[in-house]
């Protein structure tokens, strides 16, 4: 019985895309397609795609630049990159946790803003020493984010309100309210943003001097990585994680199994909000030390791209946030070197998102081809 002839062409290619390696190959494909699309666009506006991409990497500290300012080198660029990656990692974890509970937390920006704002006015403007300020900032971040997230989850559980609509509404409400307060009470006349916080409360140490270099130390970077691992453990090993996943995948079956659906939706969104709050304080009181009124951080939306690209897996988020932040961070340098507009970074992110969304289709088609070929094989074997 010669089964080999029944396999469709490129069977081994399909085996790579199907089955166990899907979690890696499909995101890689999305990235590849996006890079190709972007290179085409860059070529169309008459620039060099290769220098565009390398300057993106240089801007984020992955490759050395041609020249550096005083006391700066690739390492200092890299720590700045890590500083930018910290809030993004938290934000994408927030999205992932909500996904696991079957919810779409698109309100990360609003949760970030409220957390950052509250931490700013209560701790950032106080004269507490760092030893007290840092843990308090983190605490306020967690609590404020959890409250907004929990509220969103509550509205979903109690009133069945679509959480996407709630989150968007809350985003705008928070944005306007915070703007109001900044503009009326906390504004810095010169910068038109909120007054800078007390450096002691800032979660990033700026201008740390060593070896004749001045660089940033993002204090919470390690916390973010740790959080990713903890979330991973939560969902793969714990009982609570099992319940949240069950509710996210099939609330009716979860109820049948005796799991409390409402409680887990609430828990999922609260945890998600808490992570978003951490993103907020590491963003507004870490990477930045002031809040710009009337804007929502685009990070809140880019984190969705990060989550999807990382297959909604907490550890995958570490890699995908590295990628996306490299793009955004490097785009300032890139635009000054190559002359391509900065917005192209958000365009790349958008395209990656687009291709990631097609992932289900790729998976479907691949699974279909694989199992049809299996059926053919088993049929020939029938007596």
């Amino acid at each position: 019985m010669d089964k080999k002839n029944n396999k469709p062409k490129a069977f081994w290619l399909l085996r790579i895309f199907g089955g166990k390696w899907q979690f890696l190959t499909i995101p890689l494909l999305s990235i590849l397609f996006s890079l190709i699309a972007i290179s085409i666009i860059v070529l169309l506006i008459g620039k060099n795609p290769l220098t565009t991409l390398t300057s993106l990497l240089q801007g984020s500290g992955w490759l050395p630049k041609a020249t550096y300012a005083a006391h700066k080198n690739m390492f200092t660029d890299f720590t700045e990159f890590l500083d930018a990656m910290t809030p993004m990692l938290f934000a994408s974890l927030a999205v992932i946790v909500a996904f696991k509970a079957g919810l779409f937390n698109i309100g990360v920006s609003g949760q970030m803003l409220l957390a950052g704002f509250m931490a700013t006015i209560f701790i950032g403007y106080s004269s507490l020493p760092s030893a007290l300020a840092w843990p308090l900032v983190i605490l306020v971040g967690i609590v404020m984010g959890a409250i907004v997230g929990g509220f969103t989850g509550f509205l979903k559980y109690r009133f069945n309100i679509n959480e996407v609509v709630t989150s968007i509404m809350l985003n705008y409400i928070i944005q306007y309210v915070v703007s109001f307060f900044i503009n009326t009470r906390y504004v810095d006349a010169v910068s038109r943003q909120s007054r800078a916080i007390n450096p002691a409360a800032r979660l990033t140490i700026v201008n740390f001097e060593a070896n004749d270099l001045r660089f940033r130390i993002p204090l919470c970077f390690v916390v973010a990585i740790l959080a990713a691992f903890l979330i991973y453990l939560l969902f793969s090993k714990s009982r609570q994680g099992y319940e949240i996943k069950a509710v996210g995948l099939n609330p009716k079956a979860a109820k049948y199994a005796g799991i409390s659906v409402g409680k887990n939706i609430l828990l999922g969104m609260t945890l998600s909000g808490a992570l978003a709050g951490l993103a907020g304080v590491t963003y507004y009181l870490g990477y930045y030390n002031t809040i710009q009124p009337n804007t929502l951080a685009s990070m809140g939306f880019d984190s969705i791209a990060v989550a999807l690209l990382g297959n909604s897996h907490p550890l995958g988020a570490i890699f995908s946030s590295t990628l996306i932040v490299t793009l955004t961070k490097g785009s300032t340098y890139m635009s000054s070197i190559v002359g391509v507009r900065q917005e192209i970074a958000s365009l790349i992110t958008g395209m990656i998102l687009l291709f990631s969304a097609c992932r289900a289709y790729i998976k479907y088609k691949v699974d279909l081809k694989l199992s049809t070929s299996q059926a053919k094989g088993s049929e020939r074997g029938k007596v």
Partner: protein
Amino acid sequence: MAKNIIEFRNVTKRFPGVVANDNISFSIKEGEIFALLGENGAGKSTLMSMLFGLYQPDEGEIYVRGKLEHIDSPAKAASLDIGMVHQHFKLVSNYTVTENIILGIEPIKRNLGFLPAVDINKANAKIEELSKTYGLEVKPTSVIKNLKVSEQQRVEILKMLYRQAEILIFDEPTAVLTPQEIDYLLEIIRNLRDKGKTIILITHKLEEIKRVAERCAVLNRGRLMGILDVATTSTKEMARMMVGHDINWEIEKKPAKFGETVLRVSNLTVENEEKLKVVKNVSFEVHRGEIFAIAGVAGNGQVDLADAIAGLAKATEGTVTLLGKDITHAHVRERNTLGLSYVPEDRHNVGLILDFTLTDNLVMKNYFKPPFCKGSILQKQQCYAYANQLIERFDIRAANGGDTLVRSMSGGNQQKAIIAREISENSDFIMFVQPTRGLDIGAITAIREKMIEERDNGKAVLLISLDLDEIMSCADTIGVIYNGELLRIAEASKISKNEVGEYMMGVKTDG
């Protein structure tokens, strides 16, 4: 000599992992009632769906009226005067009867001379006429979701007749009907044949084939076993061809020996989302060693009753007591712990989490207890061990054992998994709703035997089924539910199938 109106030549159809139809060739004569016999999963519906244009054959040809045709859509099938009454009705629930029937071929009028609009009045009139001509009484302006199942089926039939179908395919039409409604339907089918239509009847019910069909094709696991002349073939022979061996329909059942009352339902009333009472003042008891079966046409409150007992639906009035403890408002988990197991009707949306592994599904009811859980940490090893035990004991087939995603398992094995899980809980009370729906004969007999085994082991079993044969063969006590009320409770040996059928239609009432 009537000519062949349909011919299948070497038709083959494959789906992922299975060959649904394997090299099938036969023909159907014009004006005959032709039956397609096979157990669940034999490939009957698939074959006819190709005739109706929902699928296309991977190999082989279909000839209609002697001409080779590529039926690539239901519209093409309709143009060939082929119509189909589906097993799961394809009706728009919030549309009227008329709107459902005319969908796709709506009559148009011009408002104000130029604005196109659907001419509902004209359609209503036509359908009124049609329903009278064929004896399929139904009000054209009724909304589908307010109609009984048998009335909805009439709408499905009218859909075909409105399109002047000449070849009518009926897919398992009697599965949802009472015995009396079945008689009525078979009469309608004979009428249609007398008016010159060709009827194809897909079924696994041998007695019905005997009553109306002239010839019959038998399918077994996708293969055509043979074409039989119904009048001269016994049901025993048909059954043997269908399954490959003799079927013993009689299930061995020891005489009933009832013990203490395990479940007591008193004056239970349940309201649905729209505040309508779907279960009205129901009272009954189930004892140790008893199989209490509730018969009824679909949609008369059975599932709501089961959900209320299990804790998935809220009881508005009345009480449910398990081994003396009042569980009327207890949380689902509390009921499970006290000794309640539930095999639900909806396998995919309630009984299983399709995107979880088989192991995760098998421990769904006890993952939170030691030894499966220590504190808040799941003990994966224990879960695997338990799952493997169940997989072996109940012969659950899954490609990767415990790691298989349940979504990729076959329907029969999914049901086995649910039953394995629920029975292994060793609860004093276990509820089965439609446990054998859509399964092949082997699985059906195995499940019925398991139910009886549990009853013999002193468990209290509640069986809710739409299959009257199943109820008659398994039950010790039979209750009939109609419109949310339990019209009659009787010992199984003291009530006839026809009587049950009459109660199912609400014709009789107790007293």
